[in-house]
């Protein structure tokens, strides 16, 4: 079972590599986990796609200093501390685009440290 899932993931990854799509985003349904890395002044990936009603764990980490992750419309927030992985569980209930941003002031580009969560059917 695990091997089949891994094969499937690899196949999708290969496909994505060819199409240039975001692997974290598209694999969310299979893996149920999406890694989001924060550093001045960006999130990677900065846009993720989730499926309505499908639970997902966001794994947040920082490459440099403390950042925040805040998606007010989804009532999701966490501190992202260096050297630590923070998990946020979410099961989006409504389709739409939801902004998230860094809410711990991190420097001159802080105001542009933004991202988007797309929730689809």
């Amino acid at each position, binding site marked *: 079972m695990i091997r089949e899932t891994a094969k499937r993931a690899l196949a999708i990854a290969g496909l994505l590599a060819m199409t240039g799509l975001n692997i974290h985003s598209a694999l969310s349904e299979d893996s149920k986990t999406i890694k989001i890395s924060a550093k001045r002044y960006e999130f990677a990936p900065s846009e993720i796609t989730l499926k309505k009603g499908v639970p997902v764990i966001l794994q947040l980490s920082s490459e440099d200093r*403390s950042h*925040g992750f*805040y998606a*007010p*419309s989804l009532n999701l927030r966490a*501190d992202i501390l260096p050297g630590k992985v923070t998990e946020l569980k979410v099961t989006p209930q409504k389709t739409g685009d939801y*902004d998230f*941003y860094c*809410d*711990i*002031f*991190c*420097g*001159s580009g*802080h*105001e*542009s440290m*933004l991202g988007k969560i797309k929730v689809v059917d």
Partner: protein
Amino acid sequence: MTTEIDRREFIRLAGIGGVVFMSGIYGLPGQAMPGNKDFFFVQLSDSHWGFEGAKINPDAKGTLRKAVKEVNSLNQKPDFVVFTGDLTQTTDDTNVRKQRMKEFQEIVGELDTKVVHFMPGEHDASLDKGETYKEFFGATHYTFDHKGVHFIALDNVSDPTGSIGDDQIEWLKADLGRQKPDSNIVVLTHRPLFDLYPQWDWATRDGAKAIELLMPFKNVSVFYGHIHREHHQMTGHIAHHSATSLMLPMPEAGSVPKRMPIPWNSAEPYKGLGFRNVHSETKARKYELTQYPINEAGKV
């Protein structure tokens, strides 16, 4: 005795930021409190000294200086000037931060006003918890009393999470404990205490705690900066008024996909760096708010 302020003068003053005219505003209707005298003060905000971006403000080195000149050219001096944060643009380099604060201090040192109250914004204080700011401007939260009004300067930026913090909340609680239910209270702060638009970080994480402490008091107004545009909102009976910036204007919350400053428009220079005046009428106990743009010369 009521201090009369010529309206043209009043409007002209408002042209460089915001002006607040206090007219015994918190007395009972028709009954000014003993010792109260009308007065006004100038509110300047978000000068972001050190900001560079010709597409946003090609007069980045000149706007603050123009503001100072305008205040000084008034026939009637304001009782005091208050800066509600983001005096300087942030930087990682402590020496550059100090240099910017020094330059800012030199420029506003030209103000022909006896009293100037400063407050930090996150650009001044969030990266070093206000340490450099305090070297130049002193405490980040404090109170003062002026002609029957109790002013409370709240710091919601030295904590980089945009919070007031439990210690300061306790300090606020203790200070309010010394006030009467009908005391005249004005809160000065940088970020909005209420959730104006959290999607753009236009909020204070624990601002609701401060508002809760202020709610038992009948006469409270809050003046703040941060959002770089004029905005007025009530939380219950508490009025919140934001000030425009002296560097870069921001669009209306949520009106554009991303939180970005409004680009400079040479056809309409200084647009969005306008001003307001706030006139409180004693008997009616209401504010008269008027918004004016800045023209190319920076004068009304």
